[in-house]
């Protein structure tokens, strides 16, 4: 993985995904190791995302790296109309790796072609957010002891949710059985379903959440956004149908864990938070270890 950019989850192979998860496990046990003291990490956030930026900066700092960058475009030369190409070319003179978030889709791919150093995509518009996918995979593996042959349910907006698409694609390498629960308007796009079929895996589609709960090892909840509906009445109809309440979990398997990419709005009621099956806050913490693993592997200090 040395010097390889990570723009889309599929830029890395199945074996590379597994290796990142193994490395993350090591960093979870020993989070502070000064193995990146000779390196400079640039975090370029063309749009603000405090959560993701702090997670990357914490990862870099714990490994002893120096961090430079900006946290939103208004505080940088971008505001003066500099092109993305020029910003990336300039910054790549000052650092060994670029972590970037940008509101336009495809920006990270373009940056990876222009930059002299590898690029990690920390979100390009509605397109890709591969470090989220890896931390989701890490959370699943950690809570279930394996990634193989699990029953995984995706709930909510399966049409527009980029985290769902990337995670489904990645899990296709691990013999997952998919349970897809969404309103009819927000079903998983056929391109992603074709990918599942190509891997000879099974998916089931549902509109009712409760019937699926006893069958699955992981419940991956997502937010349904009002702006996805042309008719506000349609939104009102579906919004309460995909809310997880603690009482619904009585019939769940003992190993079930609930994941959510956060921020949550109202799709998981707060009475679920104290249930040991709720994993969404720990899930976010795992992001630091994944990002440590990626920085170390791409900078070539670990194999």
């Amino acid at each position, binding site marked *: 993985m040395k010097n390889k950019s990570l723009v889309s989850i599929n830029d890395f192979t199945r074996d590379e995904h597994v290796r990142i998860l193994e490395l993350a496990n090591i960093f979870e046990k020993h989070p502070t190791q000064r193995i990146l003291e000779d390196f400079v990490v640039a975090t370029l956030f063309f749009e603000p995302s405090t959560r993701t930026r702090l997670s990357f900066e914490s990862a870099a700092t714990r490994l002893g790296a120096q961090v430079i960058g900006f946290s939103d475009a208004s505080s940088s030369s971008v505001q003066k109309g500099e092109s*993305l*190409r020029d910003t990336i070319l300039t910054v790549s003179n000052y650092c060994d790796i670029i972590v970037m978030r940008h509101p*336009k*889709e*495809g920006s990270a*791919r*373009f940056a990876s072609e222009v930059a002299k150093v590898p690029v990690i995509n920390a979100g390009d518009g509605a397109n890709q957010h591969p470090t989220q996918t890896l931390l989701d995979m890490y959370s699943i593996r950690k809570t279930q002891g394996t990634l193989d042959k699990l029953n995984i349910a995706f709930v909510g907006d399966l049409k527009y949710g980029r985290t769902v698409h990337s995670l489904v694609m990645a899990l296709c390498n691990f013999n997952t059985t998919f349970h897809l629960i969404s309103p009819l308007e927000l079903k998983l796009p056929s*391109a992603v379903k074709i990918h599942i079929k190509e891997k000879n895996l099974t998916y089931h589609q549902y509109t009712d959440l409760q019937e699926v709960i006893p069958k699955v090892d992981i419940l991956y909840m997502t937010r349904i956004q009002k702006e996805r509906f042309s008719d506000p009445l349609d939104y009102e109809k579906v919004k309460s149908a995909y809310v997880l309440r603690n009482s619904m979990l009585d019939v769940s398997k003992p190993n079930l864990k609930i994941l959510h990419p956060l921020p949550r709005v109202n799709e998981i009621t707060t009475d679920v938070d104290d249930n040991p099956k709720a994993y969404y806050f720990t899930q976010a913490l795992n992001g630091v270890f994944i990002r440590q693993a990626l920085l170390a592997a791409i900078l070539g200090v670990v194999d």
Partner: protein
Amino acid sequence: MEKEELRKELKVSAIENGTVIDHIPSRSVFQVIKILNLSEYQNQLLIATNLDSNKMGKKGIIKVSNKFFKSDDINKIALVAPSATLIIIKNFQVTEKRNVEIPDYVEKIVKCFNPNCITNNEDILSKFTVIDKKELKLRCHYCEKITAKDNISFRE
């Protein structure tokens, strides 16, 4: 093409050396000119449209003197005029005839239909992989979104 038909076309005006692009749907003639950047062309260029055609009802023909397109260029025509045929003329003789083929990759000419794509917001060449030649679906190399037949448009 029948000899008789070919003679009829040559009657429009024969070219000594160059390329004839035949069987263009009439509505696509000007798009083909744009794709091949022919509006800047300095040699003899003959454009005819709304001609009667047995095969297509109405068709257009473009004759480009002293120009032999690279296959990459010519394959772009297939995006707007998959029915087009190419005739290579040397010394007033037809030396080659072939259909156009949709290429595997398309660069520069097509506009990504996603308004939030980086190629529509910065000065960046567009690049696509053709993932479905029959239905004509292009996947943007940058934003990964699919631009399909019905929403293909061309860059200025």
